[in-house]
């Protein structure tokens, strides 16, 4: 029993320890915050102006602002989760993680929780500034459903990020390019700037494996109930998101064990400058 308790405490301390730099990093270099809000806002503004040039209905501006805010999470998953072990390998920290007497899942979980919290500040800023600048009004039809969908989206999304982190453990320089490759195609497939329903049923169904697809669609339905652009109903999308959360977390755990062993055997854990 004592042993179990000690392991739980170590797990929790690791989560806190790995989340700490993510949170403290927020205030260490405050000017970064400006860029991290300003850059997504530039892209979001450009997409809003496209809709305005095309004479689209006002809800499309809301769709874009919400999508623009959610890009912060996807970018965080790609660059601060998926590629994290690659950066750690480059700076020589990865070996230290591996010899530390703690769970690698706790390290990933700490990274995810810290990243989520730090990114939420940025996403909220993009949402608020975007809404103010472009005079977007959201009508929340169900606060409980909105919060639940948002949280499930984050759990599933960061679960996917943990899977990527394990997979990218094997990569060298390719990790950077692979993360780069997962930007525009995912922005397209997940409907960051337009309703996913417009891609047709089968493409939307396939894209639903990326949790942000259904999360964004459900949130748009809750915020714009009259728009009629929903892919599936909110209840179904919430259930799928819950399933994805469980599946991705279990898969991340298994993949981490498997790929760490592969990386050890092939001597890839300490290769730098590859």
């Amino acid at each position, binding site marked *: 029993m004592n042993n179990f308790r000690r392991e739980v405490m170590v797990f929790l301390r690791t989560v806190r320890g790995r989340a700490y730099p993510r949170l403290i990093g927020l205030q260490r270099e405050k000017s970064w915050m400006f860029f991290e809000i*300003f850059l997504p806002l*530039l892209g979001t503004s450009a997409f809003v102006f496209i809709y305005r040039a*095309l004479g689209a209905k006002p809800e499309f501006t809301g769709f874009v602002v919400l999508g623009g805010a959610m890009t912060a999470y996807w970018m965080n998953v790609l660059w601060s989760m998926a590629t994290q072990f690659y950066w750690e390998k*480059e700076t020589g920290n990865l070996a230290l993680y591996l010899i530390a007497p703690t769970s690698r899942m706790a390290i990933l979980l700490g990274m995810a929780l810290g990243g989520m919290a730090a990114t939420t500040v940025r996403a909220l800023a993009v949402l608020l500034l975007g809404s103010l600048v472009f005079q977007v009004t959201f009508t929340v039809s169900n606060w409980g459903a909105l919060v639940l969908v948002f949280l499930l989206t984050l759990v599933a999304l960061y679960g996917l990020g943990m899977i990527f982190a394990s997979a990218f453990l094997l990569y060298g320089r*390719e990790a950077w390019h692979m993360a780069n490759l997962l930007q525009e195609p995912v922005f*397209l497939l997940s409907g960051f700037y*337009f309703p996913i329903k*417009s891609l047709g049923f089968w493409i939307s169904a396939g894209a639903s494996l990326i949790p942000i697809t259904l999360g964004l669609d459900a949130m748009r339905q809750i915020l714009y109930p009259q728009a009629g652009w929903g892919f599936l109903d909110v209840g179904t999308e919430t259930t799928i998101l819950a399933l994805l959360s469980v599946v991705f977390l279990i898969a991340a755990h298994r993949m981490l064990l498997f790929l760490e062993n592969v990386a050890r055997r092939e001597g890839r854990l300490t290769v730098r400058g590859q």
Partner: protein
Amino acid sequence: MTIPVLQRETWRESLRSLKVATWLGWQIESNWTEPFLFAVYSIAKPVAGAMILVVMYLVVSGGQTNNPLFPYIYLGNAFYIYVGSVLMGISWAVIDDREHYGVLKYIYVSPIHVYFYLLGRGVARTLTGTIAVIITLTFGMLVFKLPVNLLTMNHALFWPVFLIGLAGLALIGILLAGLTLITARHNYFMGEAVAGALYLLCGAVFPLDVLPKSLQYIGLGLPMTYWLEGLRRALIGTSASPLLAPFSNETILIILLGSTLLVGAISLGFYRWCERRAKEKGLIDMQTMY
């Protein structure tokens, strides 16, 4: 040695620097994976980027592509690929060589011209950008029947505008490289910030007319606005921007040339100042570990 011989040697060295940097840049850009994955990477990114705008357009237009805004958006987005490639390519060469590979100091002590070395790295990114632009344009012409005819397009306008615009981009890239040399914690954002701001302000994917008045004035002061407008006019013959419509093709070309020369003068002066400052402060081999 006489002065003409010295000048010839300097030029030879500069050209060699450009050639070697282009080759090195191409290797860095392309040899990280198998040719097949590189081809997928080269196709997927630009096509997906273009498709986002296409789907946005189709959702609003109900599937029609006969609105003049469609080729406006598509072509602007396709050629804008160069802006990201060249600006980021040149400024990131400094970050890569200094922070990642730790070789910038060796480049400075070797018998090459750093200015031409950086331009060469930009040329490599221009090559990969060209692949993406060609793929995006071909995709648009085949799938969405973009009204572009490569035989009947205005070649006399296209090529001067295209080349002057690329030169302008390279010069802005050099300016950013200078800024990168003397900054520590913000250099990662700079290329992206400038490319993002230009995307918004130079009417890349929507006519400048929809911007607020104050931003329209900024847009009218940017060389990239005239570059993209000139390219669109050369390819499809018309302008979808009432704000730029009064400018004749010749005027567009003259403004582009004049603003590029101005940017060039500022860029060269600024880069030299940054380089001197970086040497004085010992920043050439700085390792920030970010």
